[in-house]
Structure formats: C-alpha cells, structure tokens
C-alpha cells in the first residue's frame, strides 16, 4: 500500500545509499536570478549543464514592474541570469519574453509542470507545482549546482502527512484561508520533515489555481513538499499547454497519471483533518504565518500567555505596532499589494476585482499579475480598468513587493494588506508591517482602509 509520495519517490529514485539518502532524477529544473551562486559554483569547477533541455530560466525576483531596473545591481542580476542561461543553451523567459512571469506561475501555465514529474527550483515555493501531483521542492544553491551538473538531486525520503479537508467552504473563504487555517493550527514548523498531501472533497473541489495557492503555502507550515493527486481538473488544465504532451502522448500520460493517488489504505506518518465549514476569512497579525486568526478576532494579548510564547507575541506586536485586545477590523492599513506566486493568477485577480468593481480604494496599492499571460487575460476581461478606476496601480508581472528585491517595497512602519506568503520582519522592506490574506480580503481592506471582513461586501453570486 503506497502513498502518492511513495509512488512519486519510487518512480524517480536512481540509487539509495545505506545511510538512507536517495539519488533522484529531476525532470524539470527552473533557475532564476538568485541562481547566480549555483552557476558560479559550476563555473568554479569547470562544469557544464547536464540537461539544458530540461532546465528553464525565469526572470522574476528582480523583474521591474514599472519601467527600467531600479538600480545597476538589479539590472546586473537580470543580465547575469540571461547570460548564464544563454551560455549554457537554456531557454530563458526573460524580460522581453511574452511568457515571462513568476516561476511558479509560468511553469504550470506553459505546461512545463505536469503530474508525475520531479521538479526543482532554488526557491522554497516550488511546493506550488505539487498541486499537479508532482514531487516538487525547493533547494539551495549547492543543490542547484548539483542539479545543473547532474540532473539529479540527493534527498532523504520525508515522512508523510495527509491534511484532509471536508465540507463546503463558505462564500468569501478560499484556498488561502484554508492554508492559513492549518498553519495556525499546526504552527510554522508543524510540517517540518514531512511531505504534505492535501485530500478530501474540499480540496477536490478547488480549481487548479486554488490548489496551487494551497500547495504554495506548504512551506509556510514547514513542509518542503505539498501535493494533490491529479484528477480531471488537473488533466483539463494541462491539456493544450505549449510544453505539455499532446495527442497520443497525452492520452498515454493521462493513463499513467490516473494511478497517481495514495492507495485507499496507505498509512501516513501524520494525519490532520479540518472542517471547511469551520474556516472563516483569515488575516495574520504577527511576523510568522502561524500568527493567523479569523478576521472577526482580536489582537492576542501576551499578558494572557506565558514563557517564550508570551515574549514572542510581545515582540511581534511591538514590531507590528498593534495593541493587544484590539479588534482586527479596527486595524488601519496604509497600502495594499495584490501579487506573488501565491495569489496572482487570473482567478485571484478576478476575486479581487469582484470586490473592487464600482468601488474606490481608500489607500494606494499595487496589483502585479503573476505573468504576462495573466496580465493579457486580465486586460482582455477589463480587470485592469476595475483596479485603476478603484485607484490602484496596475503594473507588470514579477515577484515585486512580495520580496522587495526589485525596488518595490513597503516603507518602514507602513502597514500593508498583502496577498503574499510571508509576513516576516522586513520581508516587504525594512520595518514593513505585513498582513497576509486572500485577494478578496485585500480588496476589501483597500476599500475601507482597514482590515475588513469581505463577506458582507460580496454579491450574492460571488463565491470565492
């Protein structure tokens, strides 16, 4: 009896050492500007790229979202990637490519991400691709150099965890809330050492976009891998994508992909269950994604806690400039950001636009689509107009304010309602205060200038 993890693992294992480390075949490898350390390591040993045809470059972390690069260092990071990929014969989705965007958005969009693959990228949110039933995980620079040189990676089989969610999500509640709910429950280290499989009818009911959001956030709960068994939703999404198999190849692939599910009585090292109906729209209040509460809650009071936990909450509230006991919906924000590999796909933009349509934002903000193709689609649907008429800036695709590398950042002490994945100290800029939430919730916050429960603002037909 095998879990999905076992099946994917066994299909990629080339060799297992006595100490338990497995040598695994890598089907897809994505590199970005941050991969310069790995290319330098490879150059340092005079090595070449083993499989340039299985390696793809993406400009995203430093991509300017408005005009030219913000500084010579930023321009150099982009040029270095473009040069490294050119020198090694690697396809690169560069700044002038109509397919450019965030690596975890364009991999799936281009059909490079498929069920049954092992996918690596020097980026922790590589877990996103597991939404297709792939073994996808982030690696460090030394491992990136190893994949470049050998198209393999050494990895120890993680423990297995299944998170089962059942029931209907209420209108206004989506994959982001689901993810923050389990992270709040298990903690930011709750899934360390584990590969997570998401299961249950709620997960089955999610679109590919929703599944990607859920798997994307696995790492915020400590899980290097997140995955969902592929099904018709997956096959429909993949079919017709530029790099995906077609015709008989696709039929044959789908035949194999259908077997990619945990056997009915497969045992997991850890089982977690959640009821969808218990989940409300969630916002974070602190400096770790586990610091998450329903928006109807209040800022925690450290005087009611003890030990290191009390100290941590006190420090977090101090950084965040929040008063214990205050209703979350009374917290005023300075700006919003809609973007990132967590929530910048077309469905995310539609959800935000549905709230902003016919309304004005009280605070400024950026809307950065996940890719050029998402941008084009959104513009074709007129979503850009909704954002700009609401008073937000519609900018180009890239990591932008998720990681503040390209010059887009939140100024010290400013408070941002953000669709991103990390509310770490300084993540969006030194001294920046980040509240994580879903795109619909960010849109609601933009309209009122406070953290806001989006539910009363939704039309009757709008179910997030």
């Amino acid at each position: 009896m095998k879990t999905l993890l076992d099946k994917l693992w066994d299909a990629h294992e080339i060799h297992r050492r006595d100490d338990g480390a497995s040598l695994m075949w890598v089907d897809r490898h994505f590199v970005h500007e941050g991969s310069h350390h790995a290319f330098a390591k490879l150059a340092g040993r005079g090595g070449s790229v083993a499989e340039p045809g299985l390696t793809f470059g993406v400009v995203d972390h430093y991509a300017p979202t408005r005009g030219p690069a913000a500084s010579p260092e930023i321009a150099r990071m982009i040029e270095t990637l473009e040069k490294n990929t050119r020198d090694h014969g690697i396809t690169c989705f560069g700044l002038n490519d109509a397919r450019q965007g965030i690596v975890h958005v364009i991999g799936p969009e281009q059909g490079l991400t498929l069920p049954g693959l092992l996918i690596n990228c020097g980026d922790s949110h590589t877990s996103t691709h597991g939404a297709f039933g792939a073994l996808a995980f982030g690696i460090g620079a030394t491992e990136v150099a190893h994949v470049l040189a050998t198209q393999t990676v050494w990895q120890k089989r993680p423990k297995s965890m299944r998170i089962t969610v059942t029931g209907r999500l209420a209108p206004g509640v989506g994959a982001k809330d689901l993810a923050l709910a389990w992270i709040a429950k298990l903690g930011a280290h709750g899934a360390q050492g584990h590969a997570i499989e998401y299961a249950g009818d709620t997960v089955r009911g999610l679109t590919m976009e929703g599944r990607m959001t859920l798997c994307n956030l696995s790492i915020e709960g400590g899980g290097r891998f997140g995955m969902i068994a592929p099904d018709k939703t997956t096959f429909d999404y993949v079919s017709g994508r530029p790099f995906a198999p077609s015709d008989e190849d696709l039929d044959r692939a789908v035949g194999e992909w259908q077997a990619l599910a945990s056997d009915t009585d497969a045992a997991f090292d850890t089982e977690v269950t959640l009821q969808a109906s218990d989940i409300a729209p969630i916002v974070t209040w602190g400096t770790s994604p586990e610091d998450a509460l329903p928006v109807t809650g209040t800022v925690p009071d450290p005087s009611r806690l003890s030990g290191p936990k009390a100290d941590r909450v006190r420090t977090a509230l101090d950084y965040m400039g929040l008063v214990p006991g205050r209703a979350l919906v009374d917290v005023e924000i300075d700006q919003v950001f809609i973007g990132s590999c967590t929530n910048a796909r077309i469905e995310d933009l539609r959800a935000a636009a549905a709230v902003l349509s016919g309304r004005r934002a009280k605070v400024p903000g950026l809307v950065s689509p996940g890719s050029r193709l998402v941008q084009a689609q959104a513009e074709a649907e007129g979503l850009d107009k909704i954002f700009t008429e609401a008073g937000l800036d519609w900018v180009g695709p890239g990591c932008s304010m998720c990681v503040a590398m390209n010059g887009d950042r939140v100024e010290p002490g400013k408070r941002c309602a953000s669709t991103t994945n990390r509310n770490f100290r300084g993540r969006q800029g030194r001294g920046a205060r980040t509240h994580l939430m879903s795109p619909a919730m960010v849109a609601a916050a933009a309209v009122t200038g406070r953290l806001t429960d989006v539910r009363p603002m939704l039309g009757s037909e709008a179910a997030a």
Partner: protein
Amino acid sequence: MSGWTRHTGKAVALDLESVDTDQLLTARFMTTPRAEGYGRYLLYDLRYNSAEQPVPDFPLNRVPDASVLVARRNFGGGSSREAAVYALVDFGIRTVIAPSFGDIFASNAVNNGLLPARVDEAEIDALIDELRGDAAHVTVELEHGEIEIGSRKLAFTLDTAWRQKLINGWDDIDLTGHHHPAIARYRARRAKAQPWAFPAGKAAG
C-alpha cells in the same frame, strides 16, 4: 568544503523563535557576490538600528567572536536562500543549536559545513535561561552527537547521511560522479517509458 569532527569555541544564545531566512540575510544584500563575504550582513536589521549603528546588547554584538548559536524553534524557516547560511558561516558560526530547523535551511547548512544540531526543546529552554546573553565555552563532538556547553552536556540529533557529510566534507557532485552509468540508464528508460515527461519540442534521448 573541509570536514570536521570536533569544534571548540564560544556559544551565545539568541532568545528568539522562528529566526527566518529573511532575517538571517535580508533580500537587499542578495546581489552581493559570495567572494565579498556575507558575514557583515548576518541578522543585519536586528544587529543594527535604522541609523546603521550597532545595537549594543544584541547577543552577536556582545559576543562578536561566537561560533555557536543557541536559538529557539523553527530556526531558518522560510526561503531556500543559501545565502542565509553563507551569512552565518562567513560570520564564523559553525553550529546552530535549536529545537527545530527549516528543512531547506538545514540541508543548505550541511552543504556548507554548518551543523544544525537539534536538541530537545525543554533543554534549550533551560540552556537559554542559564546563558542569558553571556558567552559560554562550548565543545561540539560531531561523531558522538554531544555538546558540552557551560555546565551542561546535551545530546543532539542529526541525520546519519548529514553526519557523514559534515565529517568527511563531501562534495556531492564528486560523489554523484560514481553513479553516472546508473543515471544514464535511468534517463534512457524514462525517455522510452515516459516520453511525456520530457517537454514537448525538446528531443528526448
């Protein structure tokens, strides 16, 4: 990277949970080439105030020659940026002792000769209480999985494969070289049995 089995130095406690990779090395320093060294950027926004002046009572400012760091749970959670490990290593840190580590951080650490030593949470609590912000003499025995720190003797857990790697200073690319025939066989098999696993338009084989 050279291997090691025993390390003696100074330890200091960082009384913080979830010291994430964005704090260890904040994004704005990431354009720096490795050759320039990352040590001065370690935990920069905690070590320096907004006027770029050192924060006097920050543990690493009080004990700038510390080589062992004691911290609370979820050390190194977050990003895969290996530069967070470079910052620790270039600063002179050889071992981090904590109840739990980010998975990617821990493997990056081992790839750079830095030991992520996992120690029971209750022992860490007691240790941090004892050390407060002061330096303590420390000896790390990699082979036996033991750490002597101040008046305490602690056992740490570490994956066997990682222990071997730290001790031997192995370079994975060299090791993998021995498996080239097996890799080539795997590739040929996969191209034949799962042609769909190769991107359309990219010749398989």
